[in-house]
């Protein structure tokens, strides 16, 4: 059922965008020209604006819901950590208290990795970051796009007993975290309905 629905949607999106895709180049040129103009002459109608997207291409990507998988600076393996008996909340502190979970800082990682597995190449990378006084620039895996205007709160979900894997996939099998589950609105609604939770729009969108 979902498969068919999504297909249908994507077809319609393709149809709509094909029409304007050819004009996309024009838009860029035109936009740049307009900016140049406002910079050069400050014409009476010149406005200070920033488009919602840095490039037209990124706007198109977002329109099609296209998000490449992130490339992490360190090949952190969830599998090994979980296999060694760690729990999600040990590193992702606060996930059961508030909207977001912590991504542990170098300090946190180094509490163990000063002594554990210091010879592994990835740990050496971590140590190098730490010694430079830098935090590892982890890349976001999940997270809603700003244009979704969604406010997600982890804590009530965890209190309600939703398993982490429901939304994040089975982390015991993942090495580097990948976007295993597509967080579409249909995905959220389906679960909310099953659990008889509010599906009112402003429950999430505000």
């Amino acid at each position, binding site marked *: 059922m979902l498969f068919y629905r999504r297909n249908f949607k994507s077809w319609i999106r393709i149809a709509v965008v094909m029409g304007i895709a050819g004009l996309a180049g024009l838009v860029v040129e035109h936009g740049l020209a307009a900016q140049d103009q*406002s*910079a050069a002459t*400050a014409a009476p109608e010149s406005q*200070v604006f*920033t488009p919602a*997207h*840095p490039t037209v291409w990124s706007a198109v990507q977002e329109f099609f819901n296209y998000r490449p998988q992130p*490339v992490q*600076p360190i090949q952190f393996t969830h599998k090994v950590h979980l296999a060694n008996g760690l729990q999600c909340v040990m590193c992702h*502190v*606060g996930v059961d*208290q*508030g*909207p*977001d*979970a*912590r991504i*542990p*800082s*170098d*300090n*946190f990682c180094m509490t163990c990795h000063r002594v554990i597995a210091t010879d592994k190449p990835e740990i050496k990378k971590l140590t190098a970051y*730490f010694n430079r*006084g*830098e*935090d*590892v*620039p982890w*890349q976001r895996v999940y997270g809603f796009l700003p244009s979704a205007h969604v406010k997600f*709160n982890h804590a009530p979900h965890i209190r309600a007993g939703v398993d982490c894997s429901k939304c994040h996939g089975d982390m015991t099998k993942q090495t580097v975290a990948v976007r295993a589950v597509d967080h579409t609105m249909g995905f959220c609604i389906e679960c909310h309905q099953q659990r008889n939770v509010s599906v009112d729009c402003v429950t999430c969108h505000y």
Partner: protein
Amino acid sequence: MERRDFLKISALSGAAAALDACGNPEHQLIRFIPEEDLTPGIATWKPSVCTLCPAGCGMLVRVMQGDAEVVRKGQLGLLKMGLAKKLEGNPAHPVNEGKLCPRGQAGLQVTYHPDRIRTPLVRSGPRGSGQFKEVTWDEATKQLAGQLSALASGKQQDRLAMVVPPLRGVKKSLLGAFAAALKAPAPVEFAFLDGGVVAAADAASFGPAEPPTADLGHSNYVLSFGADFLGTWNSPVAQSLAYGRMRAGRPGKRGKLVHFEPRISLTAGNADEWIPCRPGTEGALALSLCHVILRDKLAPAADAGHAGTLIEGWAQGLPDFDPEKAEQQTGVPAATIVRIAHEAATHQPAVALAGDSATAHTSGLFNALAVNALNALLGSAGKPGGILFTPAWTPSLGKTAEKSQAGGTLPALVKRIQSGPDAVKALLLFGANPVFAAPAAMQVREALEKVPFIASFGSFIDETSILADVILPDHSPLESWLDDAPVSGTARTVAKVAAPAMEPVHNTRGTPDVLLDVAHQLGGEAATALPWKSYDEALKAAFAPLQHEKGSVSATDPDEFWSKVREQGGWWSAEEKSLPVGGGKGSGVAATAAAPAFDGGADAYAFHLLPFATQMQYDGSLAHLPWMQEAPDPLSTVMWGSWVELNPATAKKLGIEQGNLVEVASQHGSVRAPALLAPGIAPDVVAMPVGQGHESFTRYASERGANPIAILAPMTVTGTDALAWAATRVKVARVGEGKIILFGARLHEMPEDVKHR
């Protein structure tokens, strides 16, 4: 290209660059290891103090984790840190009880202001050009210490001057101690809106030299003489809270507010009765009310005590102020005066307040004394429902600090600088902006230009600090250790203190710390007089004696006391207790009915100029905050600009329409602003908001609107040093089309248009 356009474009490109940086790890800034691990999305609340006006409200700062672009060890990068997200009133605080005025809430933007000075600067171009180059803190402090030690070695410490905004609490003591340690004259306090006249009058009438705390919440009748106590005067949040209780907080009882002023201010707009009177005659009006009360035997003259005897003719029942004479002088109908006097006398507790323009005429002190006498006659001095006096906290920093004496006034300082070459060799500026906020005729700028060395500790480049040779930017209030000791708004003794609510965003340092540092660099007596390593140590020392007082914090050992005080955002006494009233020090001060004097002849300069502080920009020190620019003025609804307020009849006579560019000229200069026609202003008065018209004060305030202070006459209130800023007469003429930005009530054709049939 205009500067503003340039600023906009640079902002634009900055934003674009930031957007480009997302997504791709290579393009990202490095991330620093956070100093503490915060959980994102969870707010913590930290107490703080509002420093934007003298009210001294207590705040709670909502701090949440966020990514800030910061410079650490000379490198730009991202840091996960606690960021202030919102300012709210501290519910426990006796002054503001959890409420906060619009200006206080916008204080957030001081911290995040894009044009804040981010790092120490040294002048690189000619003075006043605004060209600076970035230096390290070491270089900057060395330069300052060098100048100071040069003065010391030449025994020229008296040639050092400091200009500060009005200060209180430990910070005042510390600066005083610093000046004393350097054997320099005490700092000169300067602000456009300064409660000096009211404080002087209170000292003369009642004893305490501080503005009154109006206990409106218990009064039934409030007479306000010019005091915009709901907007900007004194302690607006405390007064607003009390006003709310006066109006609707007591079931079945509703107090009445009567406001006397030639123009509708925010307070006048809320008054049950707004009674316009001639500018400067508020004192005569107050005494006329007294006259009626005495005449009709509503209260005996003796009730007024010392405050009454100060007034000439009091014992005789004020024969010069019978309502008919007063009508001629003030323009208020005699019948109205009689009615109001009767209402006030029969609806006690009643209270009278004088402030703002009423005390900014040459007759200001007399006006304030007259209102004090009225208060005393109404039996409201020092009583619930009347005026109370806060037993304010005066911290002690040890013996050195005690030596600091009151500083001179700004005009005196200007005179001193002008008195000869190098009469003042070095000047330290602590955030005050006298070039903007003093009349051009006082020649502050010309004087400052003569000073060989100026150091500024402000956070922004304004008209004054642009003249500085070295700028040592202070932390924003939210990043600093703060303390305060409010003198009004509550009858409790309040000692406020707050630790920094967040880490500094920029490469700034707290000014007290810099001063301590400099003192230690100078060594010798200066170092021993200021023994503390950092400002918080000094604060702790100053607060220590309070541990043994009866107050909001009880603790057994000093450390516990200190941590509890910080947690609560301060210490305040357990019970409300007004200072005793009665022992006025004055005798015969301005006792004779002083008619107000004005600058400029009535023929050539037909209108009184009434400058007023606006709800949003205050005295101009908040004009740089975008929220304050965009929030419409409550009465005029003007955004992003200033205006000349005219009575429609006057405007018609002068051929001026709404939005026309109007020139307002005094004997000392002229300014131009668009006209705003408002019914709530006397026909012989034009009013202009203070606050706009900055030449250089960040991208949001520069070259916007007009500054009426510039054209004021340098007259003082008789009997004090305070500027009589309402004593200038002006002429008004249309000079062309203008633009006025209104949020509401935009269509001026409206009232005629909504006619029926």
